[in-house]
């Protein structure tokens, strides 16, 4: 209730174990419609086939993290995993979340039970992460089959992909809580597409002039792309920690906002 005016209480309430029941609810829903889950698996694979192997044949090698030359497929694959983690979390955090919030009245019914808005926010995000985690594992298995696993650090690519999902899922839910109509979602597309195209996803940052390079380095998807790429090729340095903190802060900030917004929207 009004307790959410205290951020500390809000944070504390994000911890309730009841959030898991919301995950269970979503598993029930997808048990019947599991086929739609495949889209998130194939999306990065199609890009890898088309751009990684098709276009990559023309490109040859590029300079990877730390400057060593790597194959274009190895360069682009982790970036596609990062983008897929972002897209998956945003899809859950926007369309699905909006439907449950405004149309299905799912959350109104849930708040008549012991669950709180914080539980709802956490439950929804955890579900998005589980979904994202399955995709990440599947994609890395495909990378292994294609001979794109070159470092044991790749194992950390799974939690890193989850962190990207956490960051974008949290922010997407926070943004969605302010949306009034489906049309408002066009704005989100307007943000996602340039992030996808220009975050060092398809070519190294040195393609940009110095000033623009700094701008790209400040954008959120770049953190994820560079983090995953470094882990996949096994080039670890302190800058990765900055990426981790950046993404974690996004996720926590998003969660705090969305849980307070749910308080305001649902507990009138």
């Amino acid at each position: 209730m009004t307790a959410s005016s205290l951020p500390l209480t809000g944070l504390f309430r994000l911890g309730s174990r009841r959030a898991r029941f919301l995950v269970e609810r979503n598993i029930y829903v997808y048990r019947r419609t599991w086929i739609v889950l495949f889209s998130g698996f194939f999306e990065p694979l199609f890009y890898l086939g088309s751009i990684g192997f098709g276009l990559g044949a023309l490109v040859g090698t590029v300079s990877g993290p730390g400057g060593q030359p790597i194959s274009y497929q190895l360069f682009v694959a982790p970036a596609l995993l990062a983008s897929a983690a972002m897209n998956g979390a945003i899809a859950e955090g926007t369309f699905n979340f909006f439907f449950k919030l405004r149309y299905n009245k799912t959350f109104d019914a849930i708040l008549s039970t012991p669950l709180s808005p914080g539980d709802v926010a956490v439950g929804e995000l955890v579900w998005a992460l589980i979904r994202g985690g399955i995709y990440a594992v599947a994609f890395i298995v495909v990378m292994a089959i294609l001979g794109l696993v070159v470092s044991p650090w790749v194992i950390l690519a799974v939690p890193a992909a989850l962190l990207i999902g956490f960051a974008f899922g949290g922010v997407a839910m926070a943004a969605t809580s302010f949306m009034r109509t489906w049309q408002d979602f066009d704005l989100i597309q307007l943000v996602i597409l340039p992030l996808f195209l220009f975050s060092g996803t398809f070519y190294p940052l040195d393609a940009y002039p110095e000033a623009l390079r700094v701008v790209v380095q400040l954008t959120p998807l770049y953190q994820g792309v560079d983090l995953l790429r470094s882990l996949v090729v096994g080039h670890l340095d302190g800058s990765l920690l900055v990426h981790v903190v950046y993404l974690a802060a996004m996720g926590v900030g998003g969660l705090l906002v969305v849980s307070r917004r749910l308080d305001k929207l649902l507990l009138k």
Partner: protein
Amino acid sequence: MPDLPPPPDAALIRARGLTKRFGSFTAVDAIDFDVAHGESFGFLGPNGAGKTSTMRMIGAVSPRSDGELSVLGLDPELAGPSIRARLGVAPQQDTLDTELTVRENLVIYGRYFGLSRAECGRRADALLEFAQLTERAGDPVEPLSGGMKRRLTIARALINEPDLLLLDEPTTGLDPQARHLLWDRLYRLKQRGVTLVLTTHYMDEAEQLCDRLVVMDKARIVAEGSPRELIERYSTREVAELRFPAGIQDSLDGQLDGLAERVELLPDRVLLYADDGEAAAVAVHQRGLRPETVLVRRSSLEDVFLRLTGRSLIE
């Protein structure tokens, strides 16, 4: 049900000066009421009287703006989850989960209360039986009729075996047959000792289901008592309803004076309040007045409402 039921006279809900404001609009204006254990208590009033806002405050999903409120001995502001764990809530608008089947709606809802999957399954099957929905268990929710959805909503509200069941306009929008079936189900719950709190703008519903009720109008409580008490206090035993040909009613001015304890001129009819409605109707004829139709009936809560507010309950 709790292991140790509270003593029968303990108030399950106690409100003093309970107030809800939305910005500058006051939806509930300093109301007082108590609901006792095992009682069936109603809020009767037109749309916008503040009934739903009151129900949401009781349900610990809407913080009060002012006053005191205790539900099951706890403060909803501080103990929301503990209170909600023991409540069953059937909101005015169906909030069934359209992405789940009929049975899943019950099972998952039980899970939100922390019940084991096996227990949820057992209760879901029993409640489907109770709500006469067993044949529809595996169906999606959307194609169900309005009456079925209401029954499912009420069944869902019972999954945690609540101490207190809150029903907001339980039969609004249902056809008569569906309403009677629902009333029958609610009556059975009452027999089992479940405390019911309901809102309604149907006086027949209030008369059927409520042991005691408050009449709400414009955010305030204007009367309180059992349906019978309210009728005795604010109305006569019978009412004669007269309908005159168009235009005649306006020219009646004063001609009905003295024929009944009270005369009420409504846009479409005239109500004569008298203990003997038949006699009043005869007296109308003796004065040479010729209404098109005459109906003598017993007083209802509708008459109480009209008396208290000067307005008809359903406009």
